[in-house]
């Protein structure tokens, strides 16, 4: 279980960074920009939230595998690596981040941004000094939820990264294998650990969403 914990932490660490950066940029794009296909893009990015993880994994096998640009042009061979698992975890965590961050950014009053502009601030300054700080609760709440979901990822990860002990076996896979093999004690311990982390993430999300109830 210890080696699986290490793999899980690496996967969630990278996935959290990816969700934070990509999620914030995409949320800004979806909340502020008007362009053709915006709704389609938003729906496509939200799909992993409702699709069975095996379907996400199946798509990712094609996106990352033989014949894909990622592998053949960029030379990134991510199948059967923990980095591949991080891609799968990011894909399923991102929609949760987007939902929350997009709503938070859309709720920032444009009058405040315009005020900053009339005071001579550049667009990047408006973004970093006004928009993101005002939306930070929603963004962080989305990030916690997305990371928690990334930690619990199982189906897509199994397809893309496999279940290789010490290399790509994550905590959810330990639970699955232990339950199948009748090692109920290990399954219970690992499940409790995962539940504890998930509870903490939800608790933090809740506090961010309801600041007055501290």
């Amino acid at each position, binding site marked *: 279980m210890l080696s699986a914990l290490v793999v899980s932490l690496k996967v969630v660490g990278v996935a959290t960074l990816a969700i*934070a950066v990509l999620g914030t940029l995409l949320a800004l794009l979806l909340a502020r920009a008007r362009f053709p296909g915006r709704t389609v893009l938003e729906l496509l990015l939200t799909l992993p939230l409702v699709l069975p993880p095996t379907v996400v994994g*199946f798509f990712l096998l094609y996106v990352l595998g033989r014949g894909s640009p990622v592998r053949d042009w960029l030379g990134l061979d991510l199948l059967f690596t923990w980095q591949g698992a991080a891609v799968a975890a990011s894909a399923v965590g991102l929609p949760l981040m987007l939902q929350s961050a997009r709503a938070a950014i859309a709720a920032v009053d444009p009058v405040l941004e315009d005020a900053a502009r009339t005071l001579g601030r550049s667009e990047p300054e408006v973004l970093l000094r006004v928009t993101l700080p005002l939306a930070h609760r929603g963004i962080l709440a989305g990030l916690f939820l997305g990371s928690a979901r990334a930690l619990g990822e199982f189906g897509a990860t199994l397809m893309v990264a496999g279940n*290789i002990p010490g290399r790509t076996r994550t905590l959810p896979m330990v639970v699955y294998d232990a339950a199948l093999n009748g090692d109920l004690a290990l399954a219970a311990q690992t499940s409790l650990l995962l539940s504890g982390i998930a509870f903490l993430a939800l608790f933090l999300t809740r506090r961010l969403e309801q600041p007055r109830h501290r």
Partner: protein
Amino acid sequence: MRVLPALLVALALVACGGGERAAPDASPRSETTLLVSAAANLADVLPPLLDAFQERTGIRVHVNYGNTAQLAAQIERGAPADLFLAADRRHVESLANKGLVLPETVRVYARGKLVLWARADSGLALTSLAELASSRVGRIAIANPDQAPYGAAARQALQRLGLWDALQPKIVIAENIQQAFQYARSGNADVAFTALSLVVGESGKRLEVPPELYDPIDQALAVVKGTRREAEARRLADFLVGPEAAAVWQRYGYDLPALASR
């Protein structure tokens, strides 16, 4: 509130750094470490075999356990496995037809045995499959007969005995043989059709289903085409079908096709 921008910049920096670090990490294997994609039913028997192989050759082996169809799909998309140990022949032969594994390396390495298993306290005699029709048997767990080889074998055996249709109301379908076995072990089913290899170390009652009632459950292997470790993968394949491995396969409840046909 200046924390968030700073945090995001920091995250972005670490993310870039992480990306650069990822490249050398992507293939942490040395040339003498093999990666085997193996059917999940081998989880017990493979570790002792691989330990013996490493002792003899110095070649380390990592294993990716999974469901045979999923492992085959991964190999089709170019997953870097060196050797494929399937739970059946069909998926290996299909990969060979597509030119994804080396056709001359396709071999049957083990033959599974179907058993009927019940808890020691079940009160069943388990001397004949006909007992399944008795009222003492409530639920019968089998692996999905459309996907799992042992599930298909169980259905075939019951069909040949003319019991399949009559037993339908009692049959519960599990995703695979491990799950079917867990249904019976936990008492949620009265009996389970499963693999002998799964129950060799277990207490409880078991009845080996007569082999003439079902087609052989042959498990085939093949070396994946294009691996940089083809020589080592071939060595492992030879080892797994060789005399030293034979005793281990038998101890774990498998028949060997070479012995069975003699």
